[in-house]
């Protein structure tokens, strides 16, 4: 599966009120290219913070579904966060992991144990009530629909193919300016 196809499937299956958090790197770029209307926080660095940031947002805004679009390298950096999410059990947090086993933005180097890594099993072992994996577009479409309609914190792994994703040029807005825009949009002031 290509990242952009998966991002498109997600866009088709979420409502406009869903808050999106993107981990850094290629996942982020795939989502940005969709041009979805959803309020999106591009979490950028520090690496490994996507899940905890999303958990904090989900707890702070229980009335909104929070969807984290996460890279496998980012999640691998801190697997312990799955225990925290399992205990906190935010009903409105859904995690989609784009797994291709490589640090794509860093140049395509493999993750440790990339050939046998199974995040869905790890997530279930950490105590998440629901975790699944999709390896084809058909499967992904079906299971994404389940992910977004079921209650409770849930994690879905999408096995995507390696595609180079080099750093783009720096955009016009710094992270703190993006953050301010995000919060003002959230407050209905923009």
């Amino acid at each position: 599966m290509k990242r952009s196809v998966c991002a498109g499937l997600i866009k088709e299956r979420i409502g406009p009120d869903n808050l999106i958090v993107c981990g850094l790197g290629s996942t982020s770029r795939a989502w940005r290219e969709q041009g979805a209307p959803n309020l999106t926080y591009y979490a950028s660095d520090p690496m490994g913070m996507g899940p905890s940031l999303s958990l904090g947002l989900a707890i702070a805004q229980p009335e909104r579904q929070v969807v984290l679009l996460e890279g496998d390298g980012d999640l691998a950096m801190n697997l312990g966060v799955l225990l925290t999410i399992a205990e906190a059990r935010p009903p409105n947090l859904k995690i989609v992991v784009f797994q291709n086993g490589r640090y794509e933005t860093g140049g395509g180097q493999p993750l440790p144990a990339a050939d046998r890594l199974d995040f869905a099993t790890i997530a279930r072992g950490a105590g998440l009530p629901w975790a699944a994996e999709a390896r084809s577009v058909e499967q992904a479409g079906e299971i994404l629909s389940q992910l977004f309609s079921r209650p409770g914190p849930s994690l879905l792994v999408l096995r995507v193919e390696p595609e180079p994703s080099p750093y783009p040029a720096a955009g016009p807005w710094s992270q703190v300016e993006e953050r301010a825009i995000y919060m003002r949009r959230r407050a209905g002031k923009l």
Partner: protein
Amino acid sequence: MSNPQAEKPGKLNPARLIVSALKRAGIDIVASLPDKWLTELIEEITGDPAITHVRVTREDDGVGLCAGAYLGRRRAALVCQNAGLLLSANALAGYALHHQIPFLVLSAYRGNHDDAYYYQMYKGRVTRPVLQALGLPHHVVASPGDFYLIEEGAQQAYLTRMPVVLLLTRRALLGDVIA
């Protein structure tokens, strides 16, 4: 009528005072990772229905959680030991400088004059120089008399748009009997 639950007169309850100050500062989400000196504070946080308490496995997840809460327009704090500040240096610097996100960190200040273990001492040596290098505002809370720093530190965090760290001594966390 006697109340068996009542505190003995003259006995300070630092944990309760800290939680009251957090709530006055508008903080109702707290992430924590334990330390021996934090036992009573974490119990107080857990037992307070007005606070959402989230137990983390690494302190930088507490940093991320506080940052996410702020994006949701809520105020959060991280309670941890100063080893956790050292571990979280990258996350703290990223949210302080790159995102400019405010929250309060309450850290047990281990390894100082009031500690009694060899293995804690290096933390006392390096904590403040590291915070200084990160450019993070930080204050030592030496005793319950300094608890005004909780509300003032929270205000400083929100006005400067960066985390503010409070380093709490043994005396501040575990208290003293008033003579």
